[in-house]
């Protein structure tokens, strides 16, 4: 039966997605992931994740989408090419930088939520730029001792 109904809470889908993601069988560590050795030297999982988050945003701020692509889950990279990944980004925002506010790793240790303050310039409807900053929530999962960015 076809129904118009209120939407299921996103957390349900998130949990489903996260569980699916960590059980992807063909994880591979991309050779493009040049930061692996550096992050492995950081002491705690939280610090390692924070470093990964910062590095990803450094890449995006420089609009270095190839570098940013390397932070996507291997499962995502198997289904979306670099050009498809890059096509998701528009030019209406200039990212100026990002600051990690908090890192919260789930008790299971395999996923985390990260609060990030993103500084940016946006484009007004009739032209011109405005500068602002806002909080965003990112979701990351860990596999084979590395954190990966999860897109909703």
């Amino acid at each position, binding site marked *: *039966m*076809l*129904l*118009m*109904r*209120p*939407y299921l809470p*996103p957390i349900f889908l998130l949990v489903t997605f996260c569980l699916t993601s960590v059980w992807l069988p063909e994880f591979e560590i991309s050779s493009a992931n040049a930061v692996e050795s550096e992050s492995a030297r950081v002491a705690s999982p939280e610090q390692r994740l924070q470093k990964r988050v910062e590095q990803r945003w450094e890449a995006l701020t420089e609009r270095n989408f190839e570098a940013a692509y390397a932070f996507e889950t291997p499962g995502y990279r198997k*289904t979306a090419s670099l050009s*498809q990944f890059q*096509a*998701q*980004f*528009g*030019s*209406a*925002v200039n*990212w100026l930088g990002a600051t990690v*506010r908090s890192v919260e790793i789930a008790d299971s240790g395999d996923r985390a939520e990260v609060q990030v*303050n*993103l500084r*940016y310039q*946006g*484009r*007004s*409807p*009739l032209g*011109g730029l*405005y*500068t*602002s*900053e*806002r*909080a*965003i929530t990112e979701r990351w999962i860990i596999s084979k001792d590395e954190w990966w960015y999860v897109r909703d």
Partner: protein
Amino acid sequence: MKKSFARTKIAAAVAAVMAASASMSVQAVNISDNGLGEVGLVPYYTVRNGFDTNVSVVNTSNRYVAAFKIRFREALNSRDARDFNVYLSPNDVWTATISVDPATGIPFIQTADTTCTAPWIGTNPNASFVEIGQTAEGLPIKRMNMTNIAWNGGTLEGNDAGPDGIERAQEGYIEIIEMGVADPNASMLASWAVHGPGQNCSVLANTYNTTAAQAQHIFVTGSGMNCESNTPYLPGQVVTGNEAFRAEFCEPLNILKFSANLIQVTSGVAAELPVTTLANFLNKPDGSENPNLPDGDDISDFPQFQTPNLESVRPARSLQINDGLFVQDDFNGIANNIAVDAVSSLLSSETVINEYEFGGGASGADFRTAWVVTFPTKHHYVDGLLRAPFENTFGVGGSCVTVDYGYYNREELAPATSGAVIPSPAPIQPVNVSVICAETQTLNPGGGNLFDSQRNYEIQLEPGYTSGWIRLGFPQAGSIVGDNGTVYTGLPTIGFSLKTTLGVFGNATPHSFERNVSNVQSCNSCP
């Protein structure tokens, strides 16, 4: 679906009279046909899911300062999340961004524009703009918070049955209402709004301050504009507060242009939003307006007042084209109507039509669609009362209206006839009946929640229906009746469909509407 506007000889004659009346400058509120007007309705703002909403207003007059009220109405019940006054100097543009505070989740309005506002810059972000920094050019960046006091019992309006939290303010729609114009060469008050050495936004805003010790008095100038014939204001008279603005400003003109967009700051993608523009919202009682020399009263009001609003339309008269004919009507209570019916009659819709695209196409892309459906006058009918055309008073969960929908794929196949060859045009086959309950809501064909909306619905599609179009109907909608008996059946609706492909936003496509205007009897307003 009944379309009862018959092209009779009488109707044709009425149309001829209407056309003549229009050419005689007897104005009534109408949907602008040239993109300029006195009222702008932005169907959606949101700060959720990484979105910022930007809005801009242009004063296209090279002579007049234009004053307008901008109001942000939350999505559930259209309660006022924030409003204030803006004073655009001739040829000026005002821009602002609606975003959200990183720490508190409180939405705010931010601008680096130098245009005057009331309130102006202060120290409390819940009562005025506060300076939070500077642009690279050294201009102050100002910010004012939205508030939940209009629905948590903090105002005379009282609490409503919905949740009390500020989260309600994180999405909604925007109404912008021009209050009046003034010639800065004739009015000292208006001159304070003009960029240059004479600009003084602080003094202008403080004119509203009627506290005796701080009151900013002005001398009525009035020279060059003679629009206050029915008021006691005389040149040289000392006035303060809103009286100063009423004395110095005249009726609004169709000089404002409105624009808005959504930007998702995490992806850098943007979508321009369609804005519904109303012209001739306020005219003299006889409906006349000289576009070059306004000669009627304005509707200026204190920044803290929830007026003007869409109920402020004067005269309560609408003008539209239906089935190729002019329809003009008054709403002065003769048929138990109210003034805002004049606006609602223009937007009254039996159905909403737009396209959808969902799921993986042949290219493996991830298509998603979100519709925004907004009823910008609904609260005048359901908040503490119930009037047609709506079905339910606002209560816990909102004020629900019945909807049904039918859909086609791109090859005009509908679910009930999938696989069959049917003639075109095919009758729509409603596939379900349900309800939508907010004043602004998002509907996602195929599922999902593109905007992470708190007022989200899913339009379920049968497998295989990945793109095409949908007709959303309001089968239980009532009618508005004009003074002369014309019947407008349906719900006053605005909105758009936003399609994404691989996360890249296309243009937001405005909805199309099927209207049902019937029983056009006469033209009681025509000269």
